[in-house]
């Protein structure tokens, strides 16, 4: 077993029921190098201060619950190992959303943007008795964007979103891309119209913090560019 080490976790805490404003709190934990940041937060929560609030579920990077700012960068707390986080770790809630408590933010505005781009398959032809055929090449067109777990790490890392909370944000564009470039879907033109709106895809200023923030390593830059290209040409390129 690898040697454990001691780490200080600084957490930006806030409970609107008792605190006037957010404040930093420090905790010391003993961790193994391969422990995740979420393990350190659990140690605090379970054995030091049970009032700490943090959403999490699967603990291995697929459910999207525990996106937060770790050492200044958006990440999932269950995908950052303590050996990489270091002995002094700062943890803050995602930026741009109302804090409900500690690391828990109000996700409703995020899901509202998600819902705004019609995030569901539309094909009004009567379904065939078997599957709708799709070539592996057509399937590959939108493979990358099917990986999105709606963790909000990308959108909340985006300066354009911070400046204008109405901006639909990278996550919703990724979700739209998943349908726009699905050869079976028929509502792609409508989605492009939605994203051509003034708070749509043109608010992207090509900073691409989102690419770095995405725990699923989705090439968001490429997805946004493809959506922009489709709007300009009026074609999906099929």
């Amino acid at each position, binding site marked *: 077993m690898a040697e454990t080490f001691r780490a200080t976790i600084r957490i930006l805490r806030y409970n609107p029921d008792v605190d006037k404003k957010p404040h930093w709190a420090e905790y010391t934990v003993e961790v193994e190098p391969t422990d995740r940041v979420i393990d350190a937060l659990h140690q605090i929560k379970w054995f030091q201060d049970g009032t700490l609030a943090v959403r999490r579920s699967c603990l291995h*990077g697929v459910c999207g*619950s525990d996106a937060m700012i770790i050492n200044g960068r958006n990440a999932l707390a269950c995908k950052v190992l303590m050996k990489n986080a270091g002995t002094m770790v700062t943890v803050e809630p995602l930026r741009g959303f109302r804090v409900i408590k500690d690391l828990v933010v109000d996700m409703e505005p995020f899901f509202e943007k998600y819902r705004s781009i019609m995030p569901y*398959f539309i094909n009004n032809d009567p379904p065939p008795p078997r599957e709708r055929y799709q*070539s592996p090449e057509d399937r590959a067109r*939108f493979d990358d964007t099917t990986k999105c777990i709606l963790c909000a790490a990308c959108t909340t890392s985006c300066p354009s979103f911070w400046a204008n909370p109405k901006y639909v944000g990278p996550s919703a564009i990724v979700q739209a891309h998943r349908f726009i470039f699905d050869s079976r879907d028929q509502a792609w033109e409508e989605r492009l119209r939605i994203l051509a709106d003034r708070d749509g895809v043109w608010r992207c200023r090509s900073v691409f913090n989102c690419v770095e923030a995405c725990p699923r390593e989705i090439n968001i830059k490429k997805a946004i560019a493809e959506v922009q290209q489709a709007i300009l040409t009026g074609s999906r390129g099929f």
Partner: protein
Amino acid sequence: MNYHKYETVIVGAGGAGLMAALYASRGSDTAVISKLYPVRSHTGAAQGGIGAALGNMEEDHPEWHAYDTVKGSDYLADQDAVEMMTSMAPGIVIELEHMGLPFDRTPDGKIAQRRFGGHTNNITGKPVMRACHAADRTGHMILQTLYQQCIKQGVTFFDEYQVMDLLINEGRVAGVVAYEIATGELHVFHAKNVLFATGGWGRVWKITSNAISYTGDGAAIVLRKGLPLEDLEFFQFHPTGIYKMGILITEGVRGEGGVLINNEGERFMEKYAPTVKDLASRDVVSRAIYLEIKAGRGINGQPYVYLDVRPETVNKYFEKDGVLGPDGKPKRVTAEYLLKKLPDIIDFCKTYLGIDPMKEPIPVQPTAHYAMGGIPTTKFTEVIVAPDNTIMPGLYAAGETACVSVHGANRLGTNSLLDLVVFGKIAGQRMAEFARENDWVPLPKETWEPVQAELDRLLNNPGNENPYQIRAEMQEAMNDGVGVFRTEELMQQALDKIRELKERYKHIRVMDKGKRFNQDLLEAWEVGNLLDIAEATTVSALNRKESRGAHSRDDYPKRDDENWLKHTLIYREADGTFRIEYKPVVITKWQPKERVY
């Protein structure tokens, strides 16, 4: 107090809950209540595939799928329900595709399928390609697709509400009581129908692939209401969890050609399952790993073995086994192909182990994975309350929390995702029909009061025990005593420990006393659920004096059909003791015989 009235209330928003919501909301006023945002549900962690005899790659039949499922179950599954599920499978996978689910494709554009443990060509006995998949994130795509369709259809959701009690009046279901996590407020939901689609309870064990939210809430509520749970002794240990962490490495890795290797470099599954080898059913493979480790052939003497999916290893054994591709030529893989088929697995290994599985083997050990048992239901998802199949009108269960039983003593890989959508759909249809045909039952006299009393007790308890310390000790005891291999003595030790912990649990202290997002309070309550399930599981396991499927005893090593070809129903009495009754197994076509892979 907050009162709501919906004809149909669905508790849980994973695959079964969302599928039920799609169907129930077409014919009844429906609400879905979940302690998580729906897209966080554990269905999203399922990787390898959904089983259906589409026959897209090679000859296959729903009857073959049914037989494999029955054989996999060690003959404990109810065969009428299995036949119904496997015959509905191709249609429901096509239905998912029509909802937009992005399955991988064959060169001619059909849904792609791969091999999985226990799924065979019934004539040759060789593995058959039956697992329909979207890379290694099939569960993610099912969860996303169903949630998308729910948005399209305008389904009503109560996200981050914890259901804490079931309301029963006049022998019928009258609703549920839920705790709003953000505010600490209680809500009473008056309903004609309630579906529990609340998932499993892998967090009873220390090494598990399950989400931290997998605490068996629905099953524990049912048990405390005096209703039975079925076949709890059968809990699946998936052979390949990441060593020490338990994170799942899909059987799809072996489906794509990966093999298990011991410290002597030997592909040991050849000894245990000469025909299908690494693709034997999960109970068989987990036991083989355990035996290898016990015999000192774990890697460097440690309690793990290697899962080797390096292309050169895969190709070596393809060559040796004479495996052919769909084109009839000898099958070969490249790292590029495996990266496309198993991207998440490769990412997990890089993130958590710092290794590239294309270059190094993966250290794995069995990990607590799936509850075959649960809330007993008919094949139409109605909850059964007695051995004669009497039902509780208006109460339904589906998905992992339910026991139909289509998995018997051991579930085949890919059958859980199938179970979710098949029985979720049936539940939704049934509830819409029930709502149409039945009047409201009035709410019972007491609704939220007992829940409030329990919360107050947890908050104001004068004790000093830490619930998470208690949970850790329970998980340790269950891993040691009620794991892959069991004996009377080990199980009794676990039971004694759990009873001691239950006593200590009475004196727990909750640190957070507030109303806002009080996870400490809810997690302490969940520990109570885990303890109840752990105790009932151990009592059921001690009682069953045979080895069958996932329930493997050193002291009773043989399956005993004469005495034990029956389902366990366990009831908790008001005084906390348990009563066990039995329900017959439904056998249609397949008489029990010895299982050989």
